[in-house]
């Protein structure tokens, strides 16, 4: 795979004093801990985190289903809640891909949309490339696998940053699983519209993760993890995924995991 794709070359701001957090609809209603953990992590880095209460969803579900007008209305409603010219940190690669890339098409007539899109940073890429964080590891030794979402990998080019962060953790051994770059089968409405194909895909993904023998895998995308964890739970397996923001906070912040 090429890492030279110009899509992935971007300028990163030097460590700002303030950022916005885009929580995503999934984290908002189902997995709020990861949002809180991301905020705490950033605050420990000395950054003030603003969380606009007007945010809801990036519009991706409707957009991927072909309902452009409905997606556009929701997308437009998001951007006005982020008026300050500061980075917008998003704790999901696929929502990040939507706001960073697809908004340029969807909202192409909107003045300043390019500038808005350029302010979107996925959590791990921001940590590595802007904050250049150096993580201490206060956790117990463990083996862990990493799942990177397809959008994080191919639209945001941030599969490398997640790996870099885990590798900084001294007591953590990062285990590669078979077909690591292959899709888990979520794909939003795809998993409902073509449930049987999606099931076959997540069946293989969970098998490959289970084969590593890890007790935990980490990911930066709740879409994938809702799918993979849901399948693992259905199979009555104990392996679970954890959002990378929570994982990094728990291991690297002194006392945070006690």
């Amino acid at each position, binding site marked *: 795979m090429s890492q030279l794709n110009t899509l992935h070359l971007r300028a990163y701001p030097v460590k700002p004093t303030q950022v916005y957090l885009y929580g995503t609809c999934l*984290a908002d*209603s189902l997995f709020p801990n990861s949002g809180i953990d991301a905020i705490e992590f950033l605050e420990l880095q000395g950054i003030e985190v603003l969380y606009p209460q007007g945010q809801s969803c990036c519009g991706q579900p409707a957009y991927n289903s072909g309902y452009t007008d409905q997606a556009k209305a929701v997308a437009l409603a998001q951007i006005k809640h982020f008026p300050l010219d500061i980075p917008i940190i998003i704790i999901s690669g696929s929502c990040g891909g939507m706001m960073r890339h697809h908004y340029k098409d969807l909202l192409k007539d909107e003045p300043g949309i390019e500038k808005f899109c350029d302010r979107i940073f996925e959590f791990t890429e921001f940590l590595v490339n802007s904050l250049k964080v150096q993580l201490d590891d206060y956790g117990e030794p463990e083996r862990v696998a990493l799942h990177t979402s397809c959008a994080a990998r191919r639209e945001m080019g941030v599969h490398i940053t997640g790996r870099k962060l885990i590798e900084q953790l001294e007591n953590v051994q990062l285990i590669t699983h078979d077909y690591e770059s292959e899709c888990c*089968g979520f794909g939003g409405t795809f998993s409902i519209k073509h449930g049987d194909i999606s099931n076959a895909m997540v069946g293989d993904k969970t098998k490959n993760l289970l084969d590593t023998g890890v007790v935990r895998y980490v990911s930066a995308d709740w879409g994938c993890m809702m799918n993979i964890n*849901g399948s693992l739970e259905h199979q009555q397996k104990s392996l679970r995924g954890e959002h990378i923001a929570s994982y990094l906070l728990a291991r690297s912040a002194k006392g945070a995991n006690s």
Partner: protein
Amino acid sequence: MSAVQVNPNDESKYAASARAFRDNVTRDLANDELRSNFRGAMDYLMDKRKTAFNDAEELETLREQCKLIKQRGLVKLPHLLEQLEEKLTANGIQVHWAETITEANEIIAQLIESKNGKTVVKGKSMVSEETALNDHLETQGIECLESDMGEYIVQLAKEHPSHIIMPAIHQNKKQVADLFVKNIEGFEHTTDVDALIQQGRNVLRDKFCQADVGVSGVNFAVAETGTLCLVENEGNGRMCTTVPDLHIAITGIEKVVEHLADVPPLLSLLTRSATGQAISTYFNMISHPRQPGERDGPSEVHLVLLDNGRSQMYSDDELRQTLQCIRCGACMNHCPVYTRIGGHAYGTVYPGPIGKIVSPHMLGLEATTNLPTASSLCGACGEVCPVKIPIPKLLLRLRQESVKAPNAPQVMKGQGSGRKSSEAIIWSLWSIMHKSPLLYRVGMWFATRLRYLMPSKIGAWTVARSAPKLAPRTLHERVKARQQTAKGK
């Protein structure tokens, strides 16, 4: 695996099998042997491609160059096609234009009949699969024999290709040996691939010498020189185009390239993307029929140029990118959906990601409405496409066309046919709720408070997964509470 049922008189025989997509998927997902055949073969092909492109920078440069070559060709397409016809004609190759598959088949049948041809030997041609040429010729009493080993296997099994480069990839060597036992007289049973194929080749060898007509595809048609380029590995393409007295080539209008110099980079990218080969074993350049004094070659060469929906792709700037395709098959090799369901489930001539974006133009969106949605949009196809077709983006576009309102301007056949009013209403309500911060917050407040009422079974999702559980408090609420605590301190 059952073959696609064929009715030679039906213009849209593939439309019916594409409509049966969901049933096909159920059937093929349940076939463990088939799934194992595909997984193994795709792993092999992905690995071969990776080895062939060991310099990422060179790959990117070449992809960009070839994308631009194809785009330049498409910008000038009408002009290049005229130039191609002019040059080919001057070279002694006769050009025929076919708007539909029926027209293409009739042209070819007439050419064969004009020579009293009774037997045809075919090189590999997906466009002739598109027109279901064999079926048509059969109704005219003309026998067609597929001479590409994969196509030959598929023909013996009365199936259709499951992959555009490797037509019989869905069969393993044991299955092929069983097939040969049943169909080849004197076949000595073996599962040694070389010995197996050699026995098949011996049958084909005789047929080349007996055939009246050779039919082939075209990989690149060079407008500048009037040259037809044919890429192949088995030598059967060369036999088909040189031994019989009549050679008929058939291809889609998008295969025209402007300059001879455009061919080397495209060829390099094609063979490396397809099979990981630096170059194919054979590369044929056909510029004219047999000349006086030449010892072999057909006395007549014809080219049939087929539209079959390509003009529709051409007339929209975004959809036009579909025509950049050089038919390497890398998108299907890397597709997690194709790897699971295999090539026959699509029900179309072209399976996999490229099949999902070309078939709706050929068969209409009504028959193919399930294809663009059968993708997780993972992007693996777009990442490996040698000519940088943004396949995921085009899938999205086709989804949009599929659910378009009835009064929208006409872009393609069957647009709007996937629109269900129930789904449209759901997305409209979703939109109203998510664009209003107040409605969203109130909605989420109630949802989280009433989370125990959420059903534990949610359609297809919970067939293989547990239902997600709503949090007791939303992130919005928790951030607010956290800020208030901080203020209080």
